[in-house]
């Protein structure tokens, strides 16, 4: 238990006053010389035990009443956050601070955000109990341990300011464990200030089990305390957030898919302001149902606008300002390039046609032979199509990997050679993809595609609800593919994948098992190959043409290059790990839009029981602090002591009452 006025506890010595008074009174009783002592002694003997017990109880009640009164005046705070924290005066306090956008939700009065509330309470706790303890701050945005001096004010640190990055609580705990492992034997505690947002805590993730093992491996037990800013639901239910899902430039216009998250239970209409390249905005009223609403907005660009640019969608102010602004970038009008690296032949031609039909000015295809792969313009190519044997070349593998990891799209088709085995009998692979020997379909038969992913991916249904006609494909030869870590997105009737895909960092690789060659299939027919490749081109277009769409916290492309903040002018930080906005590379050739992660709009929280269930054996102490204006000092524990005073005094009064006199008078004394 801690006290707000600990000095007053010195007055507990006064609790000895009743005892002292009792002892003094024993000496101060009026003395009377008594003759009838034999009766007095007899009566005294009879009541001695009970009388002594009564005296002891009375004295005890008086002492306890006095002690309880002094304790109440000293304002014990065991019931509040300050009483919960810092019971054991640790040497080191690792403070994991959640400064994700959801922590900017303000209270019902709109005066203080959860983050500000957390700073206030943590500052007070560190002042009260942090004296002598080393404080190490790890915030959810920068994730860098920062040692604080005794004079540091939490509210003045940029590391406790607002940020647009989502919090990864298991990740922060991992960093804390690494820090503690470097300083073994320290008596440390971990404090976590968070709003218990489910997406931040990831309670279903298996990482908690490995975290628990890591804690067990530490030499000392590290208590974990959570200050849960669970917030006032009233303000949260009036919050609306916006997020950009997809951006596509179509000539002189851009198509933006926006997702709105309406936390209220009612349908609302709000004005949304669209802004292009920092100019004056246009406003549009948008009707939102409760929950999530997606709208597609077409924004016309100026006729002279051929270059890449950026824009924003802004909502009116509400309890959380961080999710009211969504940024997007759009590419320039330069055609999107597809590099078709294939052995000369029908397949190569048809693949080039599918990638860049003659009628599409916005598309171009560069045909290269396999030996010319180094001519690929990696930075300006949206899609690389490889159709040949996979060379055993580390440089090739490395270049492809780098391209894909930075957002490029790679489509691999089987070589037309009979055997896919390379030199030395080794089956080469590219990014975990290798083909088996190609096989013909049974005589008078074919391989039929019967199942594919219609909801997402390159074979998803079109906007009008129709689907690519994979089931109409006529495949007479195929080369089964193995893809390490891949998932099949279409299956033949015998459950062999028709196509598999795998995401590698910002990009993805998709492997097909047949060719658009009459000796293999009619892949170019039936509206299958063309939309699939176009979708891959569009996905790859995000990294070219100057436009990228990322979340705050994700690495900007070309790691190591200096990216600078272009917009907004009043960003909370120039750091792309912290602030959403538009960033440009040092050559101002590329733009990237960093947004608040969409999961930050989710209102699901985990409760105290779920927090305690994260670890099997290690307890986590949670203090749930509602963001209200209730005084932090209004801890109920002092009232307990005040009531105790009354109870003790009442009991003391009862015990002090003189016993009832009366009853039958003694016959021998009645005459008197």
């Amino acid at each position, binding site marked *: 238990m801690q006290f707000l006025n600990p000095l007053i506890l010195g007055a507990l010595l006064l609790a000895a006053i009743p005892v002292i008074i009792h002892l003094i009174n024993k000496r101060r009783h009026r003395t009377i010389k008594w*003759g009838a002592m034999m009766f007095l*002694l*007899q009566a005294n003997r009879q009541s001695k035990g009970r009388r002594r017990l009564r005296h002891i109880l009375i004295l005890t009640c008086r002492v306890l009443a006095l002690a309880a009164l002094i304790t109440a005046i000293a304002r014990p705070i065991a019931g509040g956050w300050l009483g919960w924290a810092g019971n054991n005066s640790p040497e080191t306090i690792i403070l994991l601070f959640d400064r994700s956008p959801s922590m900017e939700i303000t209270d019902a009065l709109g005066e203080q955000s959860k983050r500000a509330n957390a700073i206030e309470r943590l500052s007070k706790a560190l002042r009260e109990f942090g004296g002598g303890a080393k404080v190490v701050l790890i915030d959810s945005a920068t994730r860098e341990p920062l040692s604080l001096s005794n004079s540091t004010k939490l509210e003045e640190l940029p590391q406790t300011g607002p940020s647009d990055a989502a919090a990864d609580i298991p990740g922060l705990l991992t960093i804390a464990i690494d820090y503690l492992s470097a300083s073994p034997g320290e008596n440390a505690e971990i404090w976590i200030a968070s709003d218990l947002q489910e997406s931040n805590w990831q309670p279903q993730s298996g990482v908690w089990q490995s975290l628990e093992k890591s804690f067990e491996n530490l030499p000392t037990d590290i208590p974990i305390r959570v200050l849960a800013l669970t917030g006032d639901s009233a303000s949260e239910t009036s919050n609306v957030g916006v997020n950009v899902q997809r951006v596509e430039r179509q000539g002189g216009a851009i198509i933006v898919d926006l997702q709105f998250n309406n936390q209220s239970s009612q349908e609302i209409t709000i004005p949304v302001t669209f802004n292009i390249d920092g100019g004056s905005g246009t406003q549009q009223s948008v009707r939102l149902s409760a929950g999530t609403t997606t709208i597609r907005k077409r924004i016309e660009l100026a006729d002279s606008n051929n270059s890449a640019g950026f824009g924003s969608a802004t909502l009116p102010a509400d309890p959380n300002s961080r999710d009211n602004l969504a940024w997007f970038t759009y590419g320039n009008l330069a055609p999107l390039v597809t590099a078709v690296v294939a052995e000369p032949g029908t397949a190569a031609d048809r693949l080039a046609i599918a990638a860049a039909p003659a009628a599409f000015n916005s598309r171009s295809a560069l045909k290269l032979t396999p030996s010319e792969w180094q001519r690929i313009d990696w930075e300006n190519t949206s899609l690389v199509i490889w159709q040949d044997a996979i060379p055993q070349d580390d440089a090739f593998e490395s270049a492809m990997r780098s391209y894909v990891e930075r957002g490029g799209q790679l489509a691999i088709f089987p070589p037309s050679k009979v055997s896919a085995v390379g030199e030395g009998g080794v089956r080469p692979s590219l990014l975990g993809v290798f083909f088996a020997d190609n096989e013909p379909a049974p005589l008078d038969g074919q391989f039929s595609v019967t199942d594919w992913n219609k909801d997402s991916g390159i074979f998803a249904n079109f906007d009008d609800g129709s689907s690519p006609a994979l089931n109409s494909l006529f495949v007479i030869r195929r080369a089964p593919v193995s893809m390490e870590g891949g998932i099949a997105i279409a299956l033949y009737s015998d459950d062999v994948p028709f196509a598999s895909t795998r995401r590698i960092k910002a990009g993805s690789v998709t492997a097909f098992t047949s060719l658009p060659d009459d000796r293999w299939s009619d892949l170019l027919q039936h509206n299958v190959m063309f939309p699939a490749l176009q979708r891959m081109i569009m996905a790859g277009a995000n990294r070219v043409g100057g436009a990228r769409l990322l979340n705050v916290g994700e690495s900007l492309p070309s790691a190591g290059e200096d990216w600078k903040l272009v917009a907004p002018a009043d960003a909370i930080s120039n750091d792309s790990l912290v602030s959403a906005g538009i960033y440009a590379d040092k050559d101002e050739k590329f733009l990237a839009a960093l947004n608040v992660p969409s999961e930050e709009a989710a209102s699901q929280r985990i409760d105290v029981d779920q927090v305690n269930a994260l670890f099997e054996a290690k307890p986590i102490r949670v203090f749930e602090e509602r963001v209200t204006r209730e005084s932090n000092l209004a801890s109920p524990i002092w009232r307990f002591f005040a009531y105790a005073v009354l109870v003790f005094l009442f009991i003391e009064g009862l015990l002090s009452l003189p016993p009832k006199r009366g009853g039958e008078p*003694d016959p*021998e004394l009645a005459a*008197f």
Partner: protein
Amino acid sequence: MLGTVSGRHKSPHCGSSIEFAEYRKYVPGDDTRRLDWRAYARSDRFYIKEFEAETNLRAYIVIDSSGSMGFSAGDRMTKLDYAKRLASSLAYLTLQGGDAIGLSRCAESGTVNLPARRNPSHLEVILDLLEDTQAEGSASLPDTLHELAEKVRQRALIIIISDFFYPPNELRDALLHLRFNKHDIAAFQLLDPQEITFAFDRPQRFVDLEGSEVVIADPNTISERYKSALSTFLEATRRNCMDSKSDYHRVLTDKPYDEVLADFLTARLPKKR
């Protein structure tokens, strides 16, 4: 009473005197001169007249001077002072009546005995002894009574003035001893009103007048038990006196002692038959 001087007290023994006492049947060996012929004429039976013999009163006053007798509450006289007045008054009256009076003082240091004398100057001796008597220490009244019972051969009136704060069974034995030796016993039990009422308004430190006991007691909590114990004791004392056919008087020291004396003497007047 037996004695060599004729006093004013009727003796229970029948002898030759002028006052007729009663008839009894003649038995061979009786003095025929005492035959009542008129009774024979009336009843045709032989009866002897009995007459009351007038003898001297021999009295002994036993005064208890133990520490408890020194108690008094407020401005009242102590029990011992009260006892002294009673004793001195009784001594005077006895000597005035031509009877013999002696005094035994029961004290911690032992019993002091003054023999019974008829001489008027004996009063001064008695008064001197009373004046020197102080209430102190613990004495043993039962022992004094036993000693008196053995020493006084002739039947006497034993007047005991005490608070009788002694074990009832010991007192009973002493009284019965006196009674067995055919003594007449009058017992004055002196009590201070506060010893009865135990009226205190706050805890007191009670110091034993007869010893070193000290008790701090809250009257509120102990009063009932004290009174119960006192009542039990008084009842036992009364019963012991009744069993020993003693003339028992319970006296509160706020009652004028002359009234007590008057009541005592009046009660001892011979009853007319």
